[in-house]
């Protein structure tokens, strides 16, 4: 599947890309919300992995401007207090995964699960 990774942290983008590419997914990256929106429109991903706190435009703002397509959204963030599953849903995301990740492979698995289940 096509996966768009929107996060301002290079290492996170890199590791997510690598973990996804091992599973033969196609990956595009964006380092802030604005770029992410551009990529979303161009790339038309199946899945967007989106960070909350980013310069220029943050995750929630991007979600409010997202194209109305069928892409699934995984919201990732270090702020476990303010954001949880319910909040993520209300913003338009499908699941919420807190940082730090215990296991990078697991992230990809959950992403696949999302797509498979529709």
């Amino acid at each position, binding site marked *: 599947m096509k996966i768009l990774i929107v*996060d*301002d*942290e*290079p*290492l*996170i*983008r*890199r*590791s*997510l890309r*690598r*973990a996804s590419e*091992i599973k033969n997914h196609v990956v595009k990256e964006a380092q802030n919300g604005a770029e992410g929106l551009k990529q979303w429109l161009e790339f038309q991903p199946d899945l967007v992995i989106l960070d909350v*706190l980013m310069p220029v435009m943050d995750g929630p703002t991007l979600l409010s401007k997202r194209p109305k397509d069928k892409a699934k959204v995984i919201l990732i963030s*270090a*702020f476990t*207090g303010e954001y949880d599953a319910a909040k993520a849903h209300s913003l338009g995301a499908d699941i919420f995964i807190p*940082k*730090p*990740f215990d*296991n*990078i*492979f697991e992230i990809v698995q959950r992403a696949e699960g999302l797509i498979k289940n529709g």
Partner: protein
Amino acid sequence: MVTEQQTELSIVCEIPELISPLQKMGVKKLFTSLPAGHSTDVLFAPYSEKVLDASAFLKVIVHSNWSNKELIRAKSDLNAFALLELNSSGMDIFLQLESLLNEIKIQIHWMQTLHDERERNKILSLEHADLSEVLQSFVSLNRESLKVHKEQNRNLKKNSFFLKRLNEAAEMSEILAIIREESKTFRGLGDPILVIHQKGRSQVLFFQNRAIAEKRMDIEFSNSQQWRQQLANILARPMGPILSLEVDQKVALLFEHQMSGEPLDKVQREWSGLLGAVAVSVERLRLDQDLREASFFWEKTFDGLDEPIGILDSQNRVIRGNRPFQPDLLTDLTKETIRRNGRVYHLQKYPIKFGEDVQSDSRVVHFSDQTAQFQLKQHMIQTEKIAALGQLAGHIAHELNNPLTGIRSLCQLLSSDLNVPEAQREDLKEVERASERCQRIITNLLEYSKPNSSGSSVLTEVNEVVNNTLPFLKTLLGFLNVDLQLSSKELWSLVDPHMLQQVVFNLIANACHAMGKRGQLSIRSSLQGKFIQIEIEDSGGGIREEIREQIFDPFFTTKPAGEGTGLGLSFSRNFLRSCGGDLILKKSDSTGSNFVIQLPHKEEPA
């Protein structure tokens, strides 16, 4: 020769033959017989019984032819002056008479003179007697007055002795005893009772069973029945007649007595005089007492002030200091803020003023204890810092989290990539573990710096909290020997984990401070009945007995001012108690201290 007086001689001649010769001789007063009861100067008479009785100055016995014997007898019997013999011739008689008369006249003259002399002597001796009498009475008067003076002197001596003793009396009861000594000399006078006037009250000292008792009455002294009745009540016996003496409405002296009349008056007079001295002594003792009390109160107040206050002279030498005052506080009088023994003082100096103009050279130095305010300020600063830090920490943590997540994830990827040699994969695994540890620290930091206000109790596993806290203390734990004995069983309690972590952190930090570079820290957790216990034991020097209760007081700290806030133990205990637990200092001696966190145990969640 014969004087004029002689012509006045009165002669009685009972011999007829002698009449005419005597006349011829010029005797004017010539009689022939001496009537009874009369006296004459010369008597011429024959020897007879009558002559014995005749009263004449000189008796001449006329005889004829007497023998010597008869002559001697006549002279002695009759006490005759002369004897005239009549047998002689006329001329003889005449011659005899003449010489006789001359003799008589001389004799009488002599007698007269003698008589006069005697009379004069009598007068003189009378006068002399008078004089003696005067002298005598003068002497006896003097003696009398000497006696009186002696008595007065004695009295004076006695009185001055009395006064001296009064002056030396150090207690009211002594005064009463002295009065009794003095009054013992009066029989019929009972023991004295001393009444000292006070406003609305009377202080009464009296003898009771050989001792002196003192009682107070709630009415002012007066000679009224009412007062006397109260006095009888105090003495617990009826009273007889009382002699009451009062001075200046200050002091009254009462004597029970069985006297009356003059002795009683004497007592009254004497004691009225002495009472003035008694009043003066009583007044002196009262002033002494007041002075002592005032001095005592001042001393107690001065010493009771818990801030150090000293009085210095112009050379900055200490004249007087209260109990908390230590001379070593004076090392630098120019500094406004002084820190000593863990306290922070603000130095205030002001000169001592006596009256309007006179300014003494001395001054008062007052070390005002500002420790609490100082610590509060520090605490507030620190709280703000922490709050600011908390916010900052949140941002920093987040900033760090991102790259760390990346590092960790990438490591995971690489260590599972079989294209990478085994050794390097192992290395990468180590890197991953290290970054995981970093993440844990950051997570804990984030949690720790969260504001407490909305701290909520959740079911918390206590051992985990302990484990989470330790990484924060790595520096502090340094080279210490840490003995961790957490229970293998999970221990759950309903508590705010952040707060609990702060408590554990606090106690371990304290333990580390108590030990310094070397020591043994033991951390044990266990279940004791219904309570979970976390014991934090150090091998430091222990906590002094005197402050073991104080350590839980807010703001109490043994750290120098500026380090630590003194709030740790106080807040910790309050928090634990609010959870149904407690913070207990189980043991503290020279081998170290052992603090125990107690929490109510909640059954393991299903």
